[in-house]
């Protein structure tokens, strides 16, 4: 982690224009446009700083289409910190001229009004569940209030019993090996209570006492990716306080985990860097510590798909695969390009639906071709996106979080 001072402009100069990142970029792959490639976008951001592009609006669509998946960072031999540059530039562009239109409204509402406030989010989901039961979601899609593919993407909202908050302490079962804090996230808690429960079960069964502090907040990742870094800072500070006393902070969402690990950059303080160093993805943590509770047998063919914010963002590739390898009966089947983005990328599939659709279809086709019966991936957005696209292709393949397969 570097101090905050290095300007995004200086970072753009790390790019030597070699192009080795091109094929890693999902938007370049679909569109074939240099303007929608990492090299092109970095060049635009450099030219904005050098004044050769006077009006940012001229290149905004190309920057907006970026998934911020960071596949380009993995591919770049020159060490360009793409995510940092993009997030800074998005922030300053948003400050200069707040975006307008439906997509912008949706963004603002989703991000600042709902996601950042657990209470409101809980309320919204309760309303959503009600609507679900009454069939309003289908109506909304049919009546064209939501674009069709957005309506498809919206997953069914789980029943209330799965959305109950998990705050409190969950004692280790058997001999206690240690104590961890569990970061639950915002959308995760509402949409994926099932996965949270599985995470707690796996951790406690493996000898860890799990604290779920009530005072924690949303990680702020969606805000940072969307160029609203200042809005994310108070959230980050709340989390620093909530987890001050925990040696290890475990999370089960690649996007949140990546954001937590980048608090050092966001806040630029020693305390934030220290917090970041204590954060672990659940797969990373379990792999470090070793499983002592044998998972339930799962005699099926499983493909593992790397969430961008786990492989490119956090450099975690081996642990989930190694853990899945310990599930009795499970056969791991490889598929083409597991590290390429599925097109979910935060709220990307809501604001760039056509492009996200194409990228998601490519991913789903690769999975179907692998012959897998289930796909495991450790990020809620990716799970939703992949499932929607599998269903659109008529595939019944199950979509699970790796930790669900580790439950004893």
């Amino acid at each position, binding site marked *: 982690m570097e101090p905050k001072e290095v300007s995004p402009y200086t970072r753009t*100069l*790390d*790019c*030597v*224009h*070699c*192009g*080795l*990142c*091109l*094929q890693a970029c999902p938007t*370049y792959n679909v*569109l*074939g*446009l*240099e*303007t929608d*490639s990492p*090299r*092109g976008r970095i*060049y*635009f951001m450099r*030219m904005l700083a050098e004044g*050769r*592009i006077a*009006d940012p609006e*001229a*290149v905004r669509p*190309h920057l907006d289409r970026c998934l911020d998946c960071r596949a380009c960072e*993995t*591919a*770049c*031999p*020159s*060490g360009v910190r793409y995510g940092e540059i993009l997030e800074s530039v998005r922030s300053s562009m948003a400050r200069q001229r707040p975006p307008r239109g439906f997509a912008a409204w949706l963004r603002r509402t989703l991000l600042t009004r709902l996601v950042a406030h657990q209470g409101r989010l809980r309320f919204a989901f309760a309303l959503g569940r009600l609507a679900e039961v009454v069939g309003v979601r289908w109506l909304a899609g049919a009546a064209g209030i939501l674009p069709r593919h957005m309506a498809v993407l919206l997953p069914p909202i789980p029943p209330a019993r799965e959305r109950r908050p998990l705050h409190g302490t969950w004692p280790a079962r058997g001999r206690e090996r240690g104590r961890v804090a569990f970061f639950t996230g915002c959308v995760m808690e509402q949409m994926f209570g099932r996965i949270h429960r599985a995470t707690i079960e796996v951790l406690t069964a493996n000898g860890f006492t799990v604290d779920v502090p009530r005072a924690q907040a949303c990680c702020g990742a969606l805000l940072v990716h969307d160029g609203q870094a200042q809005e994310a800072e108070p959230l980050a500070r709340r989390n620093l306080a909530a987890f001050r006393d925990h040696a290890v902070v475990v999370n089960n969402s690649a996007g949140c985990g990546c954001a937590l690990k980048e608090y050092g950059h966001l806040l630029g303080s020693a305390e934030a860097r220290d917090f970041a160093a204590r954060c672990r993805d659940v797969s990373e943590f379990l792999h470090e510590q070793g499983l002592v509770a044998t998972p339930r047998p799962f005699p099926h063919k499983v493909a593992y798909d790397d969430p961008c914010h786990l492989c490119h963002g956090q450099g975690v590739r081996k642990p989930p695969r190694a853990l899945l390898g310990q599930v009795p009966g499970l056969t791991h089947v490889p598929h083409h390009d597991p590290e390429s983005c599925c097109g979910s990328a935060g709220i990307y599939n809501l604001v760039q639906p056509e492009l996200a659709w194409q990228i998601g279809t490519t991913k789903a086709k690769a999975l179907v071709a692998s012959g897998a019966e289930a796909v495991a991936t450790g990020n809620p957005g990716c799970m939703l996106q992949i499932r929607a696209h599998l269903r659109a292709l008529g595939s019944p393949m199950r979509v699970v979080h790796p930790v669900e397969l580790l439950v004893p």
Partner: protein
Amino acid sequence: MDALRRQLLDLFGPHRAIVNEAALLAYECDGFTVHKARPLAVVLPESTAEVQRVVRLLRAHRVPFVPRGAGTCLSGGPTPAQPAVVIETARMKQILRVSPEDLLAVVQPGVVNADLTRAVQHLGLHYAPDPSSQTVCTIGGNLAENSGGPHCFKYGMTTDHVLAAEVVLADGEVARLGSALGPHAMGELDLVGLFTGSEGTFGIATEITVRLSPDPEAVRTLLAAFASMEAACGAVSDIVAAGLVPAALEILDQATIRAVEASVYRAGYPQDAAAVLLVELDGPALAVDEDAQAVRAICARRAALSTEEAADPENRKRLWKGRKGAFGAMGRLSTDLYVLDGVVPRTRLVETLRAITGIGARHGVTLTNVFHAGDGNLHPNIAFDGRDPEQTAAVLAAGYEILELCVRMGGSISGEHGIGSEKLDHVPLMFTPDDLEVMRRARSAFDPEGLCNPGKVLPQRGSCAEPARWPKMVERVLGGGEGR
């Protein structure tokens, strides 16, 4: 102009025609960042018919075109030297046919080099030419540059692997050059051979038939570290003299090793060595075993500090990773990178490298070396800040002297990166006015009106009477402007 842009938009739509001035900046240079020039527009056709349509339209407007693949060229090939429209092949990436029996594949020009190998590897086949940019560069670009790669020492350059090409000429006509049976099978002129390496100045290839090669039975990769460059080059000479034909013989100098080890392409190369030699042997298992023994013995005789061998594909990939990423890793040293490409006889490598170090020091530039030692193909890399005209001029002047040196040593000004706009000034170092006239005639036969990538490869008539003492590119940089 506006009329033309409007017509291009009508033909291709907003996602396949770029006409916005700001957006066009993304296309103002390739990997050679000294030469910058914005095209008038960029279009992305998806079929031969669409290429024909745009070429005809441009000809009607008397506007030249420049083909472009992935834009990884290191000599300014896809950057317009005169106002022109770029025809980008990134959406022509279908593999049209694979024939394992005939050992060939028919591809669209935008197919990425490594994707072709990936698509045929389940058949035990691969596409042999392997430029270090192979994960992104296109078969069309490879054809146009006659690209090479580490394995070309044994297997030959792109031209040895291209059987036929369908090309759209400047007037929009489609020509088929060569045949699937091989360029000489029909007893005709080797036109596809002539087209290969023409850098987009003869027309644009829209379909390419390439040879596929069977995977070797066994592969061995060795990495030897040496305390001096002399010892490393000595080992290469000994290997060749012993009658061994390794698939690849690559050398990285110390500065390159350190840059690589500091990057994501970290390969575990020994950082205290003055040079490392990467040797790859392939063929029947028994022969490869024997050859590996012989290489080890030679390295030991040349007092190698260590010799490591990759025991499995994973480790082989690791040893190669540093070599393949050397260019980008060098990018960490400054904002821009100038990758030179010269050839000298193998026996004069050490002497040349020493002189190159001297030239670098005299011009005050940071210089590292990585090269295909087997064919004496040098790649001195110079890191610099392209925003500083004086520094850029010093780098170009050093580059000019280095290539001049290569020619003096009995070598040439390009091994594989092409002439493009970068080396126009250097061409007279190698060719007489008569040589150039012959090449011009060949070019005119394909493109009589000079509409295909004009201003590249061949300097203008008259400018070649005498080699330039002070490269024009330097004058252009110091003179400011867009460096055209």
